[in-house]
């Protein structure tokens, strides 16, 4: 019961947060000078050689048709009303399609990749952390620390650029800038060959995200475990004659894991952002390049919706992490209710 109340309270707190996020998302988007019609004008002039003056009437008509002539508050409320009452996030100006359709294609890719990198990254991080802590100051510890160090300090976009350079200029790889090779794009059914082709296209995202993602966890797990290993109850367990493995995996590791789990919500955010950053550099059609093109082309409803959805997912992610922690550690839910 306490757990359910705890969950309900967290959900209720999230609602005003999401409304606030929607306002900030929209405000951020419209804060960028110029609108879609300006971008359309700029692109059409460059591509066709027609002049601004020749296109001005068409641009004015387009602005009216798209509702961009209305006040910003008006535009915001129409947008919000659509989301709340009909789940309509508006229309993409660039794709001439509902935003949900445009994002719906890419969001699962971003979330799926982020989730895989989160899980694998955390597992590797935890294992490397355990290994480093149990081999303190030995070669293995130094190597694990070094791998973690580079994962933290090298920006993901730099790693992406290096890999992109190698793929394009050195290896002349054919697995660039898409999710599948053309022959598999047309293949509707699942096959291992298609899955392997998918992996060959997205491995840079997985590799870089996992490397960067495990780094912090490795450091955290190593530090936590070393602290726990020095705790009194571990000494007691050892004194009772428990084996080294039992002490480590029954008593030390579960306690050292708490902060790692607490951090998972935040790590998901990190993984989503990482996936977006790498995909932009690599040109892989997940949310990343869509965010970039929406900014440059002022596709405002797409951009606002992406911000809102990602923020919403992060709120949910944090909520789930809190829930998991409360489930794991009764002190958390007790502490929450003792506050008020």
């Amino acid at each position: 019961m306490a757990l359910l109340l705890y969950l309900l309270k967290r959900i209720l707190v999230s609602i005003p947060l999401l409304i606030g996020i929607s306002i900030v998302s929209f405000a951020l988007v419209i804060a960028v000078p110029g609108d879609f019609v300006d971008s359309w004008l700029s692109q059409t002039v460059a591509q066709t050689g027609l002049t601004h003056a020749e296109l001005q009437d068409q641009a004015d008509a387009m602005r009216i048709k798209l509702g961009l002539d209305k006040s910003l508050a008006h535009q915001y409320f129409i947008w919000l009303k659509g989301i709340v009452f009909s789940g309509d996030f508006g229309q993409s100006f660039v794709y001439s399609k509902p935003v949900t359709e445009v994002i719906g294609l890419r969001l699962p890719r971003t979330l799926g990749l982020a989730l895989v990198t989160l899980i694998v990254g955390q597992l590797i991080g935890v294992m490397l952390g355990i290994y480093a802590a149990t081999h303190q100051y030995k070669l293995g510890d130094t190597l694990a620390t070094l791998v973690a160090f580079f994962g933290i300090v090298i920006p993901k976009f730099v790693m992406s650029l290096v890999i992109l350079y190698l793929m394009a200029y050195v290896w002349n790889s054919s697995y660039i800038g898409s999710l599948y090779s053309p022959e598999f794009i047309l293949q509707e059914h699942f096959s291992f060959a298609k899955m392997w082709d998918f992996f060959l296209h997205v491995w840079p995202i997985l590799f870089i995200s996992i490397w960067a993602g495990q780094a912090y966890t490795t450091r955290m797990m190593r530090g936590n475990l070393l602290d726990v290993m020095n705790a009194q109850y571990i000494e007691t367990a050892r004194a009772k004659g428990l084996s080294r493995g039992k002490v480590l995996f029954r008593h030390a590791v579960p306690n050292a894991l708490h902060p790692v789990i607490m951090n998972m919500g935040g790590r998901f955010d990190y993984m989503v952002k990482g996936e977006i950053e790498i995909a932009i550099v690599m040109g892989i059609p997940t949310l990343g390049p869509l965010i970039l093109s929406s900014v440059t082309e002022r596709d405002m409803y797409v951009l606002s919706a992406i911000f809102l959805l990602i923020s919403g997912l992060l709120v949910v992610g944090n909520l789930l992490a809190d829930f998991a922690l409360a489930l794991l550690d009764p002190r958390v839910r007790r502490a929450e209710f003792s506050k008020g």
Partner: protein
Amino acid sequence: MTALTPMKSVLVATVCSVALTGGAQADLLPPEKDLSGLEYETIGRGDLYDYRALDGYSEAPFLADMVAGGTLPPLADRLPEEPLVFKTGAMSDGIGEYGGVFRHVIGGRPEGWNWLAGQHQGWGGINMAIQECLVRQGPRWQIKAEDQTGPLPNLAKSWSWNDDNTQLTMTLIKGAKWSDGDAFDTEDIRFWWEDNVEDKNVAARLKAGSLAPGAKLEILDEASFRFTFDEPQSESLVERLAYIEGCPGPSHVLKPLHPKYNSEATYEGYTQAMPADNLPIPVMGAWVPVLHKADELVVMRRNPFYWKVDETGQQLPYYNEMHFRLSTWDDRTTQAVAGTGDFSNMENPANYVAALKESQSDDAPVTVRFGQRTLAWRMSLNFSDIGAEDDVDLGLRDLFRELDFRKAVSHALDRDAIGQAVARGPFAHPYSGGLVAGSSYFDSESTFYFPYDMDKANALLDGLGLKDSDGNGIRNMADGGADIEIDVIFNSGRNETRKQLDAITSQLGEVGIRVISRGLDKTNFETALHGGAFNAVLNRRNFPTPTRRSCYNMPIAGNCPAFHQEQDGKRDFLPFEEDLAEAYRTFVATTDGAEKIQATRDIQRLITENVYVIGTIQAPAALLVNRRIRNAHPGTPVYMFQWAEDAIIRERLWTPAEQQLDELMPGKIAEY
């Protein structure tokens, strides 16, 4: 029938020139540095293609099988009476072999396929692959200057003017068919004109009333039609009937969806009549879009009714399939270098050396083909008061109208240093404004140049009374007023412009002029530029021929150029601007080749002698073309009369059978 390349002409003309008419203080532009290996021959207007019946025709083998199986009409019934015949002599690698795939990578996405209603298909060559237009501009780059009398024929195989140039009669290619087999005829022209161009509810590319005052269309028969105008027009008007304004659509599909013919239809619905995912659609282009996977791929298959052939009678195109990978614009170059895309433009000189090195390795999948120097950068000073925020701006703009000030700025620029800042090697060459050196119309003797000379720059500025009256190292306005600080806007997405501006800032600082650079993203840059919200702008403005990008370069209308727009409906011409506008009018009005050339020389002289813009450097652009590709003609410019995707004539590109890539849909054609 060949002529010297423009580059060779420049060299000869420059060496031979002894005296100049006028411009006593100016030099001639120095001869261009050679771009080693760049050689091509210009050809006569009739050397590229013509229309005629051949003794026999042949087709791609799988189409022949379909004909044999009764699923496709015989080739003779699919071709027009006199198809367009590409001449072998103008093909750099000769007659091609059928089969294979040509792969594009583009950053755009198809809005929809109804180009009649102004929808684009994603740019980067996809629009041009399906839209065939009345006349054609792209391949004109290869035609020698004296034959540059106008656009090349296409769907309209010929046209003529009446005696007073108020009527233009055009004749269509007879018997051509849309890719679904429906006849292409003047009903398509009537629908395009009356129900799209002239219907103000439709956002057609060619706007109602914009072709010429009082333009009216009259259909004469199924293959000919006539435009009548209120005033005499010239051959230059016909250029408007090329891509992207003069491309008819399939009336047999669109008419039933147009509100004029369907009381239940709406204009919004009409615009979306051919949505991006709804394929195939009928086209006159060489390939038919048959599959669109959003954000991934557009696949096109050969059009079995295509109306162009080679001289042996082989129906074109040679490639059975064309792909457009839907990615990003940056990825287009990456994939071309990696060999997973077949074609890309390269327009940033900073990348040239690396790309050239990369392409020289034996196993590199891509070749880098440099064109003539057709990219040019210039700083334009705003002569208009539009967009001025205060008296300081107004004072600056008054100063800009002084010829001596513009000459001083030109003399203060070390263009060799600017060029090397952008690209090492022989790529960059000084530019003094006007037509670029790679233009067929470029004439070195008409090109004045005020080269790097600090003494002259300082003397001219002193002569204008611009002294550093407050001793802070920056000259002040003549009345001892504000420091001369010029804000220069530029597109922050273009690194080569940023590098040039850094060099210019330093060089103008040496003569006591402070430059404040203001980078804007592409959208805001264009908005500021056309709203007059700048004192100076540094940008790339290609000027290959007087009728392309005219508004950017000459005062041909109230809003042209952006750096001297009319105010409150009044023109405030600099002394030479009226002559410049007149030279342009002469160019577009005349059909006489010699008179056209003289007009371009006048344009060039007036722009450069009066330092209308402060040119910085000009450089070639490059095409990245996969090594498998044949008939990609050397010297094809990225942009001259049209973008390279048109200029390179994709329907006659080919790949030897042993190097062809597997098709995704072998043996298939569009099924309607």
